């Protein structure tokens, strides 16, 4: 099957007339969506082959977000990055193939008629880059893309496992709205530093993520971070987080004997 996009016309109609159409979102009105999308000119066919995967819809989002990052990224790994930045693709996928997932993932917001979240989950409402990490479907692919570790053959998703282990929605935005996390060595360096601390028993919270990116942001004013190796970034971040949060260096057990 080839992926179908929303046409520019359909995308703008759904966005502009959301007020009128919102009832269909509240009521999960599949019959209406199917009828709307089957009208001529609403959808365009791309050249990209795709098998619609079954997404995880378990009770715990912490589990399903992790599983779904893997599933979505695996099934759309060949997607050209420039295409993956486009609203008509993600809004199309959300409306055409993954409505059931959206209903599941923002169930509470639909119940509360939280229009802001319904819109930001279905459309790009937060600027060209930020939206990639806010849109309910796009963010799954993008987190996969940004953290996939091809050097770890046995589990290329090991960084994502950690990333998704708490507070997924906030982490996505806090972490990837910094420009330097576009550099894989930097992203991996930060995540490896935090994973190391977690393994020592530190409960990694949002504040640890914020501190890491804030610190690199300040450092990046005086140096070009991209010159650093992954290990150097790891070391810098670890040192900083230890200092700010008063975390002692681990003393190897052998030294205590």
């Amino acid at each position, binding site marked *: 099957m080839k992926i179908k996009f929303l046409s520019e016309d359909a995308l703008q109609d759904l966005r502009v007339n959301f007020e009128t159409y919102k009832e269909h979102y509240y009521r999960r009105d599949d019959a209406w969506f199917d009828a709307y999308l089957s009208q001529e000119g609403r959808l365009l066919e791309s050249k990209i082959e795709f098998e619609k995967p079954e997404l995880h819809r378990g009770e715990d989002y912490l589990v399903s977000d992790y599983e779904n990052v893997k599933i979505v990224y695996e099934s759309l790994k060949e997607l050209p*990055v420039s295409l993956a930045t486009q609203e008509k693709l993600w809004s199309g996928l959300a409306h055409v193939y993954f409505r059931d997932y959206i209903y599941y993932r923002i169930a509470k917001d639909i119940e509360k008629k939280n229009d802001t979240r319904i819109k930001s989950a279905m459309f790009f409402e937060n600027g060209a880059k930020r939206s990639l990490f806010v849109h309910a479907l796009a963010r799954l692919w993008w987190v996969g893309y940004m953290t996939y570790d091809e050097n770890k053959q046995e589990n290329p998703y090991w960084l994502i496992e950690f990333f998704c282990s708490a507070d997924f929605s906030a982490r996505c935005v806090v972490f990837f709205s910094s420009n330097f996390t576009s550099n894989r060595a930097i992203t991996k360096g930060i995540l490896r530093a935090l994973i190391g601390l977690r393994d020592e028993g530190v409960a990694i919270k949002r504040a640890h993520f914020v501190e890491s990116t804030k610190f690199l942001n300040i450092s990046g004013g005086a*140096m070009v971070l991209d010159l650093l190796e992954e290990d150097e970034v790891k070391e810098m971040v670890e040192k900083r987080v230890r200092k700010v949060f008063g975390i002692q260096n681990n003393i190897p057990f052998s030294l205590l004997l």
Partner: protein
Amino acid sequence: MKFNNSFPYPVLSPENDDYKGSAFETRVEAQKTFGQLYINLHCNLQDQKITSLINEGKAKYALHVECPQTSFRKIYQSEETKIVATINENHLRGKIDVHPFILANETIEEYTNPNLNDFYTDATITYEKGNILALGEAVEVTLHELDEESQNLPSIVTIRRSESAKELVVSLNSPQIIIELPKAIYDQYAINAGSRLKETILSMVILPSLIEVFYILKEDSADYSEYKWYQVLEQIFKKNNIPLTQVIDGTTPVLRAAQMVLQNPLEKAFNEIQKLNEGME
């Protein structure tokens, strides 16, 4: 990547006077061929001390390329004065920031240079790896998805019928500028847009919308620079030898800018009205 141009150490740059008699000139050329973007950097360094640091491998020429929208970010380094970055176009979209540098490749302690400004006499200068020794001219490359001919206003403005809007509304969070009209007005617009009052309608609908767009940009232009409409507007202004930044910083008043883009809309509208009235008499 944005640099504020103030660093806690001397940087050779045309933007400051940290050095006397030294220069770092750069030229960037971008070329698109068969799905690849080639960014060529040519450097001309006139400074003996920094040249010798490069020869010793302690510093390198560098080209930093960043495309915020696709999260592409990479640094290319060399001891040579010419660097070519080859990037698959699939990894890029819209605006690309290009920065040329000379960067410290390792810690350089007790740096001295006879060409340094007197201000630095007796100062102990240390560069850490990644610190900037020289800064070239930043360049912005924009990849257009469409050919030159379609870089015009109609390609970035869409007028839509809105079920809920009570008055004209402009929204900017998409690749195009969306002008929403209340449904009854839209229907009128659709019937009359091609009539002999076309220009008049343009003045009524597009002119105030553009004014709104420029006011929003004055408030915060960074948020929108990724969108196609912004980039096309930038091109339109550039072609007319006025940078869009002049509208944003207020040098060119918003009202004037909007009328410039539409090329004398009032005159065209009144010509139409006059013709119509003459025909009626």
